[in-house]
């Protein structure tokens, strides 16, 4: 196993607690031992490495910030961010799996669910015995989820659900879907279970990005949901957005993992590749590229740490999360593309991780709010003018 030591140009580790460091290092070693050796093959075959789920669960990275009484590790948000960072150093698809399970399935059940729902689902989701997905996006409503048309109707003993979701991570492999639908015009969260009559989740094929992650449609054709499958504390679209805010926080951290993987690959390559009798690392143009990467990674690391500390103090604003998600995804994509450039032709091979990261990041910059939407969110916050409604 090749050890990965990360990049820490400003000794940011010294700002972490002993257990935060230990958690980061543990997940880092896990990724080196379990993810790196298998990921290229799975990516090539467009296959999610589902065999990693029990191992991730055993490590405790599913719903890690939730209370111990639901079999979770009760970590703080900085530790959670570090987990996401290390997972994404392996692959954005693996991080996406953990993000969805933790921030988009366990978090809403914990926050908007009844005690019975929590008892029933959280421990199983933490142990990886059940997999979850989150259905908000629809074929005609992406950046504007407020328009969603999936509909629930009250009937005797429950609800009838009709509609369709698209681009749903984990959809086909999920045992439970947190689905957002209108009930009397108001957006509410529902728990739809695998095998319910009228519910299907076909996988979407032909992706050039996040190939090691499952992406699906969710189709609801008169699906009957018993009363207890409504998340009782959901009162509108803002609850769905609260979930997205959790997931975006994880993404802001996660993509720093991709950045470090690409930088590591580019630096190693630049030092060993000889052209015109010298390593390409010795040329000013290459150094400019590498220095840009180190600078942007360091800035993103500091941004994330403060983001996490604010979240742990309960002071974090969603606009700050938007700024971080927006910046870090953009820089990660820049770094992946520049790394690809440094690797020359080798950069397109899956012997190196950079092209996979570059392709993955095209999804990451789009989902959980596109780059543009985060621009508009921060733009509205600082000017007072909403540019999108």
């Amino acid at each position, binding site marked *: 196993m090749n050890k990965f030591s990360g990049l820490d140009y400003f000794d940011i580790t010294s700002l972490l607690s002993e*257990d935060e460091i230990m958690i980061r290092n543990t997940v880092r*070693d896990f990724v080196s031992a379990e993810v790196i050796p298998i990921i290229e093959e799975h990516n090539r075959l467009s296959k999610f490495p589902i065999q990693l789920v029990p191992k991730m669960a055993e490590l405790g990275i599913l719903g890690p910030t939730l209370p111990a009484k639901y079999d979770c590790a009760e970590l703080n948000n900085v530790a959670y961010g570090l987990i996401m960072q290390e997972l994404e150093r392996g692959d954005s698809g693996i991080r996406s799996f953990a993000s969805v399970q933790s921030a988009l399935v366990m978090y809403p059940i914990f926050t908007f669910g009844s005690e019975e729902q929590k008892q029933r689902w959280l421990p199983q989701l933490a142990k990886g015995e059940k997999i979850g997905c989150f259905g908000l996006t629809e074929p005609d409503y992406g950046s504007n989820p407020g328009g969603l048309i999936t509909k629930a109707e009250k009937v005797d003993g429950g609800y009838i659900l009709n509609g369709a979701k698209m681009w749903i991570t984990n959809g086909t492999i999920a045992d439970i879907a947190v689905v957002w639908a209108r009930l009397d015009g108001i957006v509410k969260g529902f728990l739809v279970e695998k095998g319910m009559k009228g519910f299907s989740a076909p996988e979407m094929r032909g992706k050039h990005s996040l190939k090691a992650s499952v992406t699906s449609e969710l189709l609801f054709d008169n699906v009957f949901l018993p009363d207890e499958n409504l998340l009782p504390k959901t009162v509108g679209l803002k609850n769905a957005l609260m979930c997205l805010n959790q997931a975006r926080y994880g993404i802001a951290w996660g993509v720093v993992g991709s950045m470090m993987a690409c930088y590591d690959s580019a630096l190693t390559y630049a030092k060993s590749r000889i052209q015109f009798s010298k390593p390409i690392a010795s040329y000013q143009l290459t150094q400019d590229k590498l220095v840009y990467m180190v600078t942007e990674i360091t800035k993103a690391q500091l941004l994330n740490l403060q983001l996490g500390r604010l979240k742990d103090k309960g002071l974090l604003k969603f606009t700050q999360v938007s700024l971080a998600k927006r910046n870090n995804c953009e820089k990660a994509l820049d770094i992946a593309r520049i790394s690809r450039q440094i690797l020359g032709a080798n950069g397109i091979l899956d012997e190196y991780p950079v092209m996979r990261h570059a392709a993955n990041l095209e999804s990451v910059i789009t989902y959980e709010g596109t780059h543009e939407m985060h621009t508009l969110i921060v733009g509205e916050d600082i000017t007072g003018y909403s540019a999108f409604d």
Partner: protein
Amino acid sequence: MKIAVCVSHVPDTATRVKIGADRKSIDPNGVTFIINPYDEYAVEEALKTKEKLGGDSLVYVISVGTDANKETLRKALAMGADEAILLKDDNPRDSFGIAGALADEIKSLGCELVFFGKQSVDYDDSIVGQITAEMLNYNCVHIVVDFKLDGNKITAEREIEGGREVIETELPAIITAQKGLNEPRYASLKGIMAAKKKVITEKPAAASTNFSEVIEMNLPAPKKPGRIIGTDSSAVPELVKLLREEAKVI
């Protein structure tokens, strides 16, 4: 049963060490320290043994050294060890000195089964386990790749040149772990959080004699750069000649 694991805190094998100003120790600046990799097998075997025995078995981890060693003790606690003991001494000790402190503690704890790594990757003496066994008058099996405990009886396999040797012995005993003995578990995140609540008991390491002293440390001479004598089969005669006359390997 009380089981002990003795662990050392060593520079990460991936880091480049520099020699300190005193020329007798390494410069710890910028060096990451980790639990000695062979000790991870020792911790795992102790935990597995405890899990098999069930009941009120306890796993103690013990380390001789400075406050810095607490990091390694924490790691063992996070993997699942029950209690940690730091035997403090800010002065360097040789293998004999370390064994003296460990033997004293193992005796006062009353541990009948003790695991070590087969060697510590810092000084590579590969002797602390055996000296400790001698001091305690315990049986000892060194470089173990398979371990079974049945009541009082131990069956251990050790690696020897070209094969394996099966040894039967009994408690009390010291076992030193070799790679292959098991697959060390990850410290789970819950384990890490639980380890925060466990205390590390600190006490001065028992006095013990050192029988050796580091006089000076030197880095090995830098490797000479390689030489390319040709890129096709016409270079073979020259290569054979150099291997015979210069490198003297054939």
